[in-house]
């Protein structure tokens, strides 16, 4: 078995992984190794050919391939070694990685620090348990995206999209651009899963019908999908079968959510957040195991790539510091507790010591849509952050920043609560 040593090993080369690798190198780590199971760098971005990437970091509206090109170019400039076609099989808590590739066979990598950047994958039909036959023509939106944008295949001619996540809405437009007819986008909730801008520019622009509070109750067809049955749902999200109707189609595309890809993390034994589906992290993006860091969609599914990149930059810098200087002081810890209408907060813990250096941005996601709300961070009866939002939705993460001025006060608390409450 071939053995390698490096300061920082990064698992995954999407936006989070490449940002972490670049940041680790720039923070002084000499050997940074990027491990990627695909045959190219970039993760999912090369297939996201639409615009909307990079507004925050580059102040430009880039396509996915253009966005990741900048990081790939920077990685090449820094001469970061990358191992393509390399699947990481196991990571141990003393930071040894086992991986396999056709070129090198089984590999062992001893790393000073590890960054988990495996991203997320799509929820499938199996996870939804839709009754019906098992014909060809059922696939996830991301797979359809790969077919259309990378491989050059059209999945079908008459398409129904189940779920209104961003990828589903973007693919509805993409299918239309390539001459297919999108019969319907069907969403079980009373609001869309993705960003409102994508409803406007992907569905409304091309007159694609959106059925809210509806779901697919049956898939028809034997060899190939011939149609789906859809029905309105009640308040408990159960289909009202009398409202059922049939839509003829040859393809059903699923855009029903993304799941952080954490088999490696779970096997490694890092503590997980049952709500995000990702590892618990602190403000350094360090997991519960010292020297193991995580960033991007593996931590929580982000709605914009700039947030992934920013997490990657923090994780990479922290990993380099750990590899070069050993563990950082992270005590005493303050737990961040999701309060009123907050589903989760990332990071889940912070250390008051670090707060003296720079304001700490927290990413939070609401549980349900609301209007005219106040976002607050509260310790006991004292409010240390307060902002107003006109509208919030689960599809759009919010950022709340803990100001440096709160550092001294926070040294005395062990918990902060984040609330999103309607202003009366």
């Amino acid at each position, binding site marked *: 078995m071939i053995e390698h040593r490096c300061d920082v090993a990064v698992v995954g080369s999407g936006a989070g992984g490449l940002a972490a690798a670049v940041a680790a190198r720039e923070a002084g780590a000499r050997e940074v190794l990027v491990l990627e199971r695909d045959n190219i760098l970039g993760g999912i971005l*090369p297939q996201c*050919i*639409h*615009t*909307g990437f990079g*507004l925050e970091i580059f102040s430009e*509206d880039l*396509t996915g*391939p*253009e966005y990741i*090109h900048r990081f790939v170019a920077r990685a090449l400039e820094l001469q970061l070694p990358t191992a393509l076609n390399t699947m990481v099989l196991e990571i141990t808590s003393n930071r040894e990685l086992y991986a396999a590739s056709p070129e090198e066979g089984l590999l062992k990598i001893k790393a000073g620090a590890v960054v988990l950047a495996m991203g997320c994958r799509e929820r499938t039909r199996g996870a939804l348990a839709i009754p019906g036959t098992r014909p060809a023509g059922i696939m996830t939106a991301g797979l359809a995206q790969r077919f*259309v*944008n*990378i*491989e*050059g295949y059209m999945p079908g001619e008459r398409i129904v999209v189940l779920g209104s996540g961003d990828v589903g809405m973007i693919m509805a437009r993409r299918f239309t*651009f*390539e001459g297919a007819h999108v019969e319907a986008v069907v969403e079980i909730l009373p609001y869309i899963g993705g*960003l*409102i*801008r994508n409803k*406007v*520019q992907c569905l409304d*622009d091309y007159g694609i019908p959106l059925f809210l509070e509806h779901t697919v109750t049956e898939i028809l067809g034997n060899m190939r999908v011939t149609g789906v049955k859809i029905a309105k749902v009640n308040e408990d999200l159960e289909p009202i079968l009398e409202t059922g109707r049939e839509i003829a189609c040859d393809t059903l595309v699923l855009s029903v959510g993304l799941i952080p890809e954490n088999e490696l993390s779970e096997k490694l034994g890092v503590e997980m957040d049952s709500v995000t589906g990702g590892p618990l992290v602190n403000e350094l993006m360090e997991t519960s195991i010292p020297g193991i860091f995580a960033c991007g969609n593996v931590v929580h599914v982000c*709605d*914009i790539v700039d947030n992934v990149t920013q997490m990657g930059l923090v994780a990479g810098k922290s990993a380099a510091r750990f590899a070069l200087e050993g563990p950082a002081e992270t005590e005493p810890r303050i737990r961040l507790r999701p309060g009123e209408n907050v589903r989760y907060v990332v990071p889940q813990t912070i250390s008051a010591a670090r707060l003296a250096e720079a304001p700490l941005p927290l990413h939070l996601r609401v549980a349900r849509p609301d209007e005219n709300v106040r976002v607050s961070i509260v310790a006991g009866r004292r409010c240390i952050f307060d902002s107003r939002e*006109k*509208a919030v939705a689960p599809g*759009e993460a919010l950022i709340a920043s803990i100001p440096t001025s709160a550092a001294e006060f926070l040294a005395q608390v062990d918990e902060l609560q984040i609330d999103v409450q309607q202003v009366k």
Partner: protein
Amino acid sequence: MTQRQEEMLGSFKKKDVICILCPKGCPLTVAGQDKKGNPKITGAECKEGKEYALQEITDPRRVITTSIVVTGGRLPLASVRTSVAIPKDTVLPCLEEIRKVTLGAPIHIGDIIVPDVLGTGANIIATRDVAATQ
């Protein structure tokens, strides 16, 4: 404001649009003109949003992205975009035009694939590299 924009503004009382410039998706309203003749736009949280609202109700435009077939490349397709937003009613005709194009590898990010597509003033440019097969 152009004369056309002035005319358009006078042709309706109030129009709502949702801004697509950033993930916030602010709901914007354009309702006539103030005393100085400037359009009254509410709901925007930035200058760009106000400009978008005026643009959207007078001359809606979109950046389009698609792909072209590549021969002799390591990948069968290259992703492309319009260099600037094009009028909304030219989106589908431009896609037809782009579909006619086949290019040989190598292709470099930023290459102009179709100059001034259908006279819109926008170039179709490559958004990725496609290396040639050896």
